[in-house]
Each structure stands twice: as C-alpha cells, then as structure tokens.
C-alpha cells in the first residue's frame, strides 16, 4: 500500500444516518465508540458532517420520505467514499418489506459496499463490516487514482 492508501485506511471518518431505524442498530453503532470497543483506536471519528466523512453508515430501510435526504448526503460526501448498511432493515427492508411507503433496501437509492445483517447488528459485526469496507476502499484507492474515481 502506498502512503495515500495507508492514510485513507487509517483515518476513516464516519457519518451515521438513520433512515427510520428503530434505534436498535444506532445504539449498537454508538456502543462502538465506548471504551469497550473504542473504534477511535483505528482512527475512526463520528463526524456528523457529510463533507468531512469517508464512510456512510446507514441504518433503517429506504423509504419514500428519506430517499431524497439519503441521496443528498451521499452526494455531499467527497470521494473516495464507501457506504455500509447496518441491520436487516437496511439490507432488504426487513420487517418493513413490501409496506406501501417502502422502497426496500438502501441499495435501491445509493450504491452500497458492505451489508451488515442483524436485528440489531452486534458492535463486533459492525466493526467487521467497517474493516471489510476499508479493504474495498484500499482496493479502489490502489486500482485507480482519486481523480479518475471522482469523475467515475
């Protein structure tokens, strides 16, 4: 890995968006920040600002109400970026599947890199998911330069 890829993998800043999850997965994401799991040791910071974020964590199903906001947040993030879906709802719609206001999984709205199933997903599973996403980020960073990626 070159120095840029290393820096990208070592410094993933996280934006967390809840499209209408029951808060179960959100609590588990926040649990990752506590001293027990301490994801900041991998350089992860919960930034809450799409313009500073590298990783988008989405919980909850894609629905008609939130699709526009979700797309907007995704588009405001500067490349290179990865999207991780946390929880069964986000993966497929979960228990809300086929409801009249549902679009289904998050991948109906924005491209998703990693799916972390579970209801709710455990903190260990979320950290595994982020590690997997960082591998994808590294592959993408190595394969083509940032500019080409930005234009893609």
């Amino acid at each position, binding site marked *: 890995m070159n120095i840029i890829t290393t*820096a990208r993998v070592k410094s993933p800043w996280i934006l967390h968006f809840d499209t209408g999850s029951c808060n179960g997965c959100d609590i588990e994401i926040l649990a990752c920040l506590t001293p027990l799991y301490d994801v900041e040791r991998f350089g992860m910071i919960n*930034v809450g600002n799409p*313009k500073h974020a590298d990783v988008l964590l989405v919980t909850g199903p894609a629905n008609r109400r939130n699709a526009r906001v979700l797309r907007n947040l995704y588009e405001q993030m500067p490349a290179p970026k990865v999207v991780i879906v946390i929880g069964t709802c986000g993966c497929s719609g979960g228990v809300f599947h086929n409801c009249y206001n549902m679009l289904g999984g998050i991948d109906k709205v924005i491209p998703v890199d990693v799916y972390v199933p579970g209801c709710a997903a455990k903190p260990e599973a979320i950290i595994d998911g982020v590690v997997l996403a960082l591998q994808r980020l590294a592959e993408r960073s190595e394969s083509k330069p940032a500019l080409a990626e930005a234009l893609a």
Partner: protein
Amino acid sequence: MITPSIALEILVTVFALVVAPLAGGLLFGIDRKLTARLQNRIGPPIVQPFYDFIKLWNKDQIFANRSQLIYVYVHLGAAMASLVLLVWQQDMLVILFTLALGGISLVLGGFSVRSPYSQIGSQRELLQMLAYEPMLVLAAVGFYLVTGSFLVAAVFARGTPLLFELPVIALSFVLVLGIKLRKSPFDIAAAGHAHQELVRGLLTEYSGRYLALIEMAHWYELLLVLGIISLFWANPLVVGFGLSLLLYFLVILIDNAVARLTWTSMLKITWSWGAGLSVLNLAAIYVLSYLGWIGG
C-alpha cells in the same frame, strides 16, 4: 550578499516552518492518545493527525465558493507568518495582530457560505476571539512593563524569568490555550471529536484539502502559543518549553473533566478570571516597582 548571520537566520526560519507543523501534529496526536487514556480507551496512534492530513489532502475537492479558499490560504499564511515573527524575536504586538488576522480570515471564510451552521460557528469564533484577545494583549503589555520593550528579543536579553513578575498572566494562558485549541469548556465555535452541536460549526463547509490546510494552520498556532508561553522562562528556554507543555497537559485535563459552556459564561470567565486578574497583575507590578521592591 549573504552573510553568515543572514544564512543562520534563513536556516532558523526554514527550520521553524518545517519542524513546527511536525511538532504540532505530534502534540495533537499525543493529545488524542492522552484523552483516550483518560477515558480508559486505547486511542489512536500518535501519528494519527498526519494520517488525517494526508487523507484529507487527497480527497475530492468540493467547495462552496472560491473566496472561501483564499481565506484558508490567508489563515494558514498568517499562522506561519506569526510563528516566523516569533522566531525572529520581533515585536510582540505585531505577532498578536498577525495571529488575529489569521483568525479573522477563517471567520470571514465561515461567513462567505450560506450554511447556518457555518454562520453561527463564525459568530461564535468571533466571540472566542473577543474572549482571548484581551488576555494576549495584556500579556504583551506585561512584557513591556517588565522589559521596557515589546520586542521578544528584549525578553531573551533579560536574565531573570518573567514568570516571577507575571505569574497570573502566565496562568491566564491556560484559558487562551483552551480556546485556541477548541477544548472544553470553550469549544463552542467548532468542537472536535464526537460532540456535534453545530455539526462542525465554523468548519462545516470546509472539506478535503482545505480542511487539511486549516488543520495545518492549527498546528502552527499551537506552536506559536506554546512559544509565547515559553517566553515566561526564556533563560534557559528549555524550562520555558517545559512550562508550556505543563500548561498544555493542564488544558487536556480540563478538557476531559468539564462540559461545554455557553458563550456568556465563556466571556464572564475569560474577562474576569483571565483579563481581570491579568490587570491586577499589571497593577501589582506598578505598585511594587513604585515601592522599589522590584526593578521596573
């Protein structure tokens, strides 16, 4: 014609410009590690700020308008210039005004976009400057009262440390450092880490390379303030560095022990305990030198 003394001057300047950001970045890394340990966490490696910098530098460039970018460059340039002025042992007031120019530039950048978070953050940054500037200027006045000159060189020319005459003013730098580093309880304009009242406040609309440059300016500013604190024990300067690192550690401790204040409380604390006591310190010097107890 380059004489040896000019060559030395250039060497020192380049050294300051190159080493200062490295040292500043490392100090911020140590800060994050220390904060994590204080919270019973492992924490990121101490080179984490450099990973963040390189990552931000290589991100896609998004900006709201072009004037925003000019303000970032002025911010960084002013931070570098004020540090160079300190290394050249120039006028204390010019150093402070250059620093203030950089601060104002960042605020103007925040005002140049229409995001409400950025606007409120900029307003608060102005309030923060209003809080710490009096203390900095009073410190410069203190230097003048004791050494008879605003020049930093005069501080070095003096044998005995300034700390004995200006103990309260030296302590007031805990407040200055806390505000400058955006630490609790004064992190109202743009808090770091996970607490996000105004998203990222002043820094909300900066991203990628420009955020990295602001971060770098922050490293220079840290070194500048630590350098000014070192002046309180200029001979030998090593003791002064020790003193500044001690205050830095104190600021990190306070950051982890307290919650965020509102801006009214910040102004009350900084103007009474900071600037107010600094004025008393200056008055004491007047009285004591009038009585002949210290050489004025």
